[in-house]
């Protein structure tokens, strides 16, 4: 009995020391996975995932507090990329957070704008330009289409417009989606 206790105690001490040494030797700082997740997210900063922005969402995914299907702007592509990165099974977009639609930007109706600056404060990427009591305008190329500027606007002068397809952004459709071959 005593021998058994002693033997186990000795083993425990040796292994404890070994692990303790390992913990110091292989100490890890930071969590690089967050950066990788953040790089996949579309950076619209729209908050539809219920987090304050793309990075907080990335942190939540890394911690396992959020699922990978909460990003409507990213849609299927982002879910697939996240599933691939994290070795999980892809799943359909969670409809609670919204639906994946056409890419849009907002424009400000300059005739109606009263220059209240509320939208400027709401814009997460500083894509709205203007000064108090002067009308504002959206820098189209910087707008992420998050639509966060729409609720604060007191005069509803901000409208959503689709980005549209140009020769530069046109893509070939996949034959698979086009005439769904057998599926």
């Amino acid at each position: 009995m005593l021998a058994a206790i002693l033997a186990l105690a000795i083993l425990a001490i040796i292994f404890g020391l070994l692990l303790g040494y390992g913990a110091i030797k292989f100490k890890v700082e930071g969590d690089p996975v967050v950066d990788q997740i953040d790089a996949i997210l579309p950076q619209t900063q729209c908050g539809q995932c219920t987090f304050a922005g793309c990075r907080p969402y990335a942190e939540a995914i890394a911690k396992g507090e959020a699922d990978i299907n909460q990003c409507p702007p990213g849609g299927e592509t982002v879910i697939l990329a996240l599933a691939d990165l994290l070795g999980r099974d892809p799943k359909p977009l969670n409809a609670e957070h919204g639906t994946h639609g056409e890419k849009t930007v907002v424009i400000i109706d300059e005739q109606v704008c009263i220059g209240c600056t509320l939208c400027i404060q709401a814009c997460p990427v500083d894509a709205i330009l203007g000064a108090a009591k002067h009308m504002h305008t959206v820098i189209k190329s910087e707008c992420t289409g998050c639509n966060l500027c729409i609720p604060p606007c007191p005069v509803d002068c901000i409208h959503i417009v689709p980005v549209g397809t140009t020769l530069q952004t046109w893509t070939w459709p996949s034959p698979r989606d086009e005439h769904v071959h057998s599926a």
Partner: protein
Amino acid sequence: MSTFISSPHTLFTNNVTRIMLLVVAALIPGIAAHIYFFGIGIVINSIICIVTALLCEAGMLKLRDRPLWPFLTDGSAIVTALLIAIGLPSLFPMWLAIIATAFAIIIAKHLYGGLGNNPFNPAMVGYVLLLIAFPKDMTLWLAPHAAGPAVDFVSTLQFNILGQLPVIAHFDAITMATPLDTVKTELGTGLTVSQIVTNHPHLADAMFGKGWDIINLLFLLGGIGLLYKRVITWRIPVSMLITIAIFASIAYASNNTLHASPLFHLLGGATMLGAFFIATDPVTASTTPRGQLIYGCGIGIFTYLIRNYGSYPDGVAFAVLLMNLAAPTIDYYTRPRVFGHHPGTSS
């Protein structure tokens, strides 16, 4: 009609059905020899397997909500069914053939998405199922010719469908182990090759194993036809046959009392059928040029190992499945050099 049409704007020059029908055509000489030596049973088995295969195929397509016509006419189910049927003894219970074919088409083919998606050769999955689960039925081969009149069309039909043996015959009298099986079993009892041949004079006929050599040669002929028609490429069959030949030669040269000759291995069992018709199934084989050589070699090695040291008389079916298993990995590591890339930096 889609809105965006991509080039090329040409008629198609080839189609899947043509490939499958050519394979069926190339099987015919071998099957004919089979009938000649082992009776009409193979035809009955083939019909049973083909009907089962087409029914299963149609059922699965229906369940999976896929169009029936293009997939039923692609010919792939018929090839699968034929490959199973050719491997069955002439006197063989119908229900086993049905089980094997249904297993092949439903489990090995359609659960993976049907034509083109299956990682394992469906015919070999069905066949291996029989080998594992019903080994005894699989070894009851008729003796070539000998029982010819005793096992005519009607009595074969009777046995295969109803399970009744013709009154005039007794099982032991008309069946005989295959040459591969005989040699293996008797080697196991400590006899030497020459003693075995003395005990079984028919093994000395022609080139070891009466009938089997002719059947193998005719499958070889069909295979050459497929090569000529560019349905298959030379890499898999040639590397497989050469590997078997090399292994058998080394063993034979080192000790010819314990090992049968290379010719015995090349023209025995399912070697030629396997090399030209089973291993070359493009869906489950390796697709890169170097990969195909490795793939063929692998089948050769496993066939020889299982034949000589394993518990099964022939190893082709197992060898094909084992290499099916390895094909994706082989493909991954044997990608050819792309134009404009330095050798060694394939990606």
